[in-house]
């Protein structure tokens, strides 16, 4: 019946459908002599349901790419297509989470997570009637999935950094987005909390199968979570390398110590050190990151 629709909107049986496409898209801030090119013309394709990580030196335009996909920035030149349409005209739902959890301090965790349901159609139409029943259950279920069951009545200031970040992920996912944008979401957490959240993030992704774009400094994080890792150069950012991560799912922390994983990490690391214009000396200090 809707054969035409399935042509436009990628069906579940066609996993390789392109969901995000950059076509020679670039970003330049400022004008004239002061103009700074943050992102060199870049082409990139991301398939629906893919988990892609962007890594690279600071200020290389990783977050710029994220903002373009999230329709917060328009490309200076070139085009960005999401779900087959140029950005700005995309009817898709997007979730976003930053390193700073930005939970609203005057709302408890449940209401914080519920915020997108109040704003995003079609949920917003039923918000008034369903917020105490259906939506509430929906939030509780998601909170339970990330290990925050029973914390709905707490306020953000009563939670630890890791718990706030879990709530932040829930807020980014509650409205069933087609696309999740993560900008160093685990950057401010201690190592053990971070590893715990990697596992949670992987579970969420495996259960929802949505497209995820992750910006991170942490190569281990990228290799643990992503299907594909794009390495970017220093400003103006370019994609230097785009390689799949051939590790089985679900991945575990133990796998991060296996030779394949370590080799991948080392290769990525060498590339970023090169991109920063670093010397060989940095390479001999494995602790420096």
């Amino acid at each position, binding site marked *: 019946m809707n054969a035409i629709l399935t042509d436009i909107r990628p069906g579940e049986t066609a996993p390789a459908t392109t969901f995000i496409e950059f076509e020679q898209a670039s970003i330049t801030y400022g004008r004239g002599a002061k103009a700074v090119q943050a992102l060199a013309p870049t082409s990139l394709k991301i398939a629906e349901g893919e988990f892609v990580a962007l890594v690279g030196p600071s200020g290389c335009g990783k977050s710029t790419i994220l903002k373009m996909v*999230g*329709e*917060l920035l328009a490309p200076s030149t070139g085009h960005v297509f999401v779900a087959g349409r140029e950005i700005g005209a995309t009817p898709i739902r*997007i979730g976003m989470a930053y390193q700073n959890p930005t939970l*609203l*301090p005057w709302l408890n965790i449940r209401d914080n997570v519920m915020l997108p349901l*109040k704003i995003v159609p079609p949920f917003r139409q039923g918000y008034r009637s369903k917020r105490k029943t259906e939506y509430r259950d929906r939030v509780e279920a998601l909170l339970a999935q990330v290990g925050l069951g029973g914390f709905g009545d707490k306020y953000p*200031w009563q939670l630890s950094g890791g718990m706030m970040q879990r709530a932040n992920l829930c807020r980014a996912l509650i409205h069933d987005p087609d696309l999740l944008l993560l900008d160093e979401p685990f950057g401010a957490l201690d190592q053990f909390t971070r590893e715990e959240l990697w596992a949670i993030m992987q579970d969420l992704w495996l259960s929802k199968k949505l497209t995820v774009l992750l910006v991170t400094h942490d190569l281990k994080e990228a290799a643990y979570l992503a299907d594909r890792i794009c390495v970017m150069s220093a400003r103006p950012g370019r994609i230097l390398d785009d390689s799949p991560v051939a590790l089985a799912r679900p991945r575990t922390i133990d796998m991060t110590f296996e030779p394949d994983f370590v080799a991948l990490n080392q290769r990525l690391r060498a590339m970023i050190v090169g991109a920063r214009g670093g010397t060989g000396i940095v390479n001999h200090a494995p602790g420096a990151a």
Partner: protein
Amino acid sequence: MERVSEIIREKGASTALIIGVFVFWELFCLMAGISDILLPRPTQIIAALIQYWPAIWPHTWQTLYTTIVGFGIGVVIGLLLGILIGSSKLAYDTAYPLLVGFSSIPKVAVVPIFVLWYGAGTVPAILTAMIICIFPIVVNVATGIATVEPELEDVMKTLKASKSDILWNVSLPRAMPYFFAALKVAITLAFVGSVVAETVASNRGIGNMMMIASSSFNVPLVFAGLFVLAGLGVTLYVLFSLIERRVTGWAHRKTDVASA
């Protein structure tokens, strides 16, 4: 239990200080033999307060009325201007210099203009109270709205939230602690405004009563007027503090956690 005794100690100390000041005042006047034409003793002031109460009461009512009305209008205008200036960078850059210039005019100086326009009486007092309390509210509300975290704004924009979605769900609630801080300043300023206007041009109100009392050298009554103003000011300040605690308790809770 420790916290309860701590509160008692704090409150006890401030109460003792207030009583101490009055006792010192009383004793100082008695021992130095200061005439009540210069500085009446607190007991004389209270006696005057009781003696003239039927005459003071309508004036108190008038001052309270002009202050509250002026304050109310000022709050509405201040809030609207604050939202406008805070939510648009263009409006902020355009209107801020004008606002600063406007606020640096001593408000007392505009009272004669209001009198010229509206005649002596209630209206200049209301307008002075209004104009004096707009500025702190505008500045605070605009600051509260303009300082929403950019990340949070990005999150809202990716949800395709409209401007009014962002205003009602994020900016306004976030500006509430700033707004209430401004209200507490504004209500005391509003009293200054209405009393000054009454002093200059009115035949009613505490300011006017104090003018008349001082011209007939009834100094205890002048001070009784001051006491009434202080009482009104403190009462409204406390009232707004209580509302503030209820509405923006989330902004003050952090200290509770730290001390728990």
